[in-house]
């Protein structure tokens, strides 16, 4: 108990308050859009956290995240057509996304740097065509380019789906935090800084890179499947789309690559921009592209990097670590 009270700082208190607000949000009778904004924020946050783990902490610029979320989404959709309940499809789909990550890790981990980026860029493009051609169930009218409806989720309300998204976002943040504190995090940092040196010091670089890749695939898959349960249908063109990669990359880099707070701030900005400029879809991405380039040139660690240099941050840090009791 004493150890617990010692850890109870204002920073933790703030986190707890924010989480509680997020939990009770859907039953507060707020306008419906608010829940939707927060839902998208949580989905993007889970994916961005995992991308931050790969790109920021391991140095793997993975452009194949749409493959994982698409595979998991498709497994849920197809599962509901053959009588698998949605929750089993959710877990199973994410697990299959993880297995898929193991399978593609053999060719893509032979590549490094830019080769890895392009090798992974190809994967969702190939999957899109495969899902255009592959038509396991549904007869003439469904499947292929037309996509699938997700059946028998009538008993799920928006609040339920929202809470699932919240759970996944929290899991992603906790997993990231735990990995960074563990020996695995140390191994990842050594690979990022100098892979050859790490390998010659006895770090099994292949295996240690596969862990975050697979964990990232699993959680990205969970988040994607929840998104498609919310959307109610899935089709290949929008699923295996660079659009997802853009959102994830923008959120992480604008907020701050290689910082734990970065994806949170970046995702808030991406969601706000998305809804402010929803009517002008092109402008939203154009502005995000400009922000991305400018941020990268001014401060490679994103907004968190800028804030860290100011005096306000040291004040904030002192405030957050102050003990309550």
């Amino acid at each position, binding site marked *: 108990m004493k150890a617990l009270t010692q850890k109870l700082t204002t920073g933790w208190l703030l986190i707890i308050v924010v989480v509680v607000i997020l939990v009770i949000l859907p039953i507060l009778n707020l306008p419906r859009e608010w829940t939707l904004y927060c839902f998208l924020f949580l989905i993007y946050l889970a994916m961005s956290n995992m991308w931050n783990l790969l*790109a920021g902490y391991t*140095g793997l*610029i993975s452009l194949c995240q749409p493959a994982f979320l698409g595979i998991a989404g498709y497994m849920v959709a197809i599962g509901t057509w053959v009588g698998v309940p949605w929750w089993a499809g959710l877990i199973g789909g994410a697990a299959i996304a993880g297995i898929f990550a193991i399978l593609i890790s*053999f*060719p*893509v981990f*032979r*590549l490094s*740097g*830019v*080769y890895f*980026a*392009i*090798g992974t*860029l*190809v*994967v969702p*493009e*190939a999957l899109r*065509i*495969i899902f*255009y*051609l592959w038509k396991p169930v549904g007869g003439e009218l469904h499947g292929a380019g037309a996509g699938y409806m997700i059946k028998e989720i009538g008993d799920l309300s928006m609040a339920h789906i929202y809470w699932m998204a919240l759970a996944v976002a929290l899991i992603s943040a906790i997993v990231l935090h735990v990995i960074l504190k563990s020996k695995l995090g140390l191994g990842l940092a050594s690979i990022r800084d100098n892979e050859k040196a790490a390998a010659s010091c006895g770090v099994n670089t292949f295996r240690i890179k596969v862990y975050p890749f697979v964990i990232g695939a699993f959680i990205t898959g969970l988040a994607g499947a929840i998104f498609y349960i919310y959307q109610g249908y899935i089709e290949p063109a929008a699923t295996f789309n*660079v659009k997802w990669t*853009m959102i994830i*990359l923008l959120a992480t*880099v604008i907020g701050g*690559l290689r910082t734990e707070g970065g994806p949170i701030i970046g995702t808030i900005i991406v969601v706000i921009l998305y809804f402010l400029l929803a009517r002008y*879809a*092109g*402008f939203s*991405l*154009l502005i*995000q*592209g*400009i922000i*991305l*380039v400018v941020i*990268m*040139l001014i401060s*490679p660690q994103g907004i968190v990097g800028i804030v860290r240099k100011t005096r306000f941050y040291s004040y904030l840090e002192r405030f957050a670590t102050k003990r309550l009791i």
Partner: protein
Amino acid sequence: MTGDIFTPLVMGVLLGGLYALIAMGLSMVFGVMRLINLAHGDLVILGSYLAYAVVTFLGLDPIVSLVICIPVMFGIGFAIQKYLMGRAFGISGEAPLIIAFGIALIIQNSNQILWTPLSRGLTTSYSLASFSLGQLQFPVSYLLDFIAAVIVMLALREFLVRTYLGKAITAASQNKRAALLMGINNNLVYGFAFAIAMVSAAIAGVFLGMTFPFTPTSGTQFLIIAFGVVIIGGLGSMFGTLVGGLILGICQTLAGTFLGPATQMLIVYVIVLVILAIRPQGLFGR
């Protein structure tokens, strides 16, 4: 029976010329700066739209429009290298990659705002015509693509071997420090290399527009094709790029004929992944 295999083969060779043309700029930037320019596909499409603008407003022939498009793309390329990429190299390993991604995003969405997402094409009287080879008919635009690719390849090769700037670019790509000690201004050379790559992108954009309809989002597809060509042909080798383009073009048309049109792009992706896994430096790479 001979006609069955002959048609896709010839089409593949001609199409491969276009692919090589698209990939040449990517290969050059990759060879000189070790940078995968993720914006290359979108820069090629930007070339198509520039030509489209010139053709629509000035009523010029697409090929003549290059007189305007080439200087514009040269300037854009030089500016991108000087103000964005040049700085990005000093920041970190992943910064140039992310900035290239940002540039791709900016170009794609500017095109979308300016030209709407409708599909466009550069149509001329001769681009829809066809020529006959034996008893078979082939589109003239494909032949033009192939001729343009060969001319651009030879011109680039002569430029790299014979001119001072070309030699400086080659030197900087082989050993940056040694080039610096020989009195070469690396930053300037990189700027010119990127600008010349963009000139080839402008030419590729015009011929692409005459062959296929394009939309603001076509860039990604052509980036992967260009990357496939570079991966098959090996880095920085102009001849390898042409061979890579031909191999990819032939594979694609053969797959389209015998396995159905939907597999055309799939075969490209599979080839890229397999070659990446087996021989990342390319078939003709050093």
